[in-house]
């Protein structure tokens, strides 16, 4: 199924409406259209990393600098970034607002995504990372704004899982 052009736009506008101008990301298919917008928008500073754990450090630097920041990654990238999440963000009380493409779940046709998809929510729970699923384009902007607010007040990583319902047409 093709990635939703309209909903990618809605998510991007939601990020901007939350007052965020700094975005770190590792590109992946569901995030592609969103990242193209970020790249083309002069008001958005997009930093593309080689591996997702780098983005945890960059997000910490942005937080110290007082710059609102979101991280965009796939759930497998989140799994690759866990030590940074635990031993930088959680250890020091640094907020992270993570928008995570939730691959490998209901309707997933690709076998390689499935193991990561099956364990994502349990891993988030095990790490005490509050999360919500984003399914509805009418609600996602509010969810982004609330995720950002909560990350800042709780000084904690917070995750919004971008589901297939939202990301594919």
């Amino acid at each position, binding site marked *: 199924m093709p990635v939703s052009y309209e909903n990618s736009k809605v998510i991007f506008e939601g990020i901007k409406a939350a007052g965020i101008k700094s975005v770190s990301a590792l590109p992946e298919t569901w995030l592609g259209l969103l990242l193209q917008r970020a790249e083309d928008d002069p008001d958005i500073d997009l930093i593309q990393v080689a591996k997702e754990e780098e983005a945890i*450090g960059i997000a*910490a*630097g942005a937080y110290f*600098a007082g*710059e609102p920041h979101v991280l965009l990654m796939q759930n497998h990238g989140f799994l690759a970034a866990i030590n940074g999440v635990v031993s*930088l963000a959680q250890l020091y009380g640094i907020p992270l607002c993570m928008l995570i493409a939730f691959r490998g779940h209901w309707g997933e046709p690709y076998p390689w995504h499935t193991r990561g998809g099956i364990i994502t929510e349990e891993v988030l729970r095990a790490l005490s990372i509050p999360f919500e699923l984003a399914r509805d384009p009418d609600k996602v902007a509010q969810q982004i704004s609330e995720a950002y607010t909560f990350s800042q007040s709780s000084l904690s990583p917070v995750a919004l899982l971008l589901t297939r319902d939202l990301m594919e047409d």
Partner: protein
Amino acid sequence: MERATCIEMIYPELEDKLVVTIMGACAQELYNLGHRENFFYLQHAMGLASSIGLGLARHLPDERVIVLDGDGSVLMNLGTFTTLARYRPTNMIHVIFDNGSLLSTGGFDSQTTSGITDLAAIARGAGIEHVASADNELQFGEAVLEALELDDLSVIVAKVKAVGPDHYGMDLELPENAFRFRRYIREKKQATDQ
């Protein structure tokens, strides 16, 4: 050359810079010279000191950022060189103390022991233009001075002995370090804006 000597040499220069160190010996040796509110010690999450440096440098173009890294840490995040090269924060100096050892975790040889792996060559290969290697204090001092004069990203790989401080411990809790570091930046920004 010892890392403690190198840190002592540059300590006066760190007064008005944002400094991020890695864990263990490097953090302790800086702390022992006297903690400042503009120092952040990353006591875990090996590899991410330079990523924090990039996040700081990119969002605070009027500040100078100095990252004090180590071979063991940077080997855990070699991709950082490629990201630094791509975004080229002109206000950041990345110092890597290469002791060829995982000193803080038992002194095992790292991949850079005996010059098998050359971190400076990796940094250059990643696309970083200004990369210096230093084997003695004179070379290190010159490399730092040159980097400070340059308005560009610099990487300095300093070959040091695998020795550390004789004691560990800070009167500074980890979140406290983060809160105070952030407050220092905020207050400096507010003072500049006024």
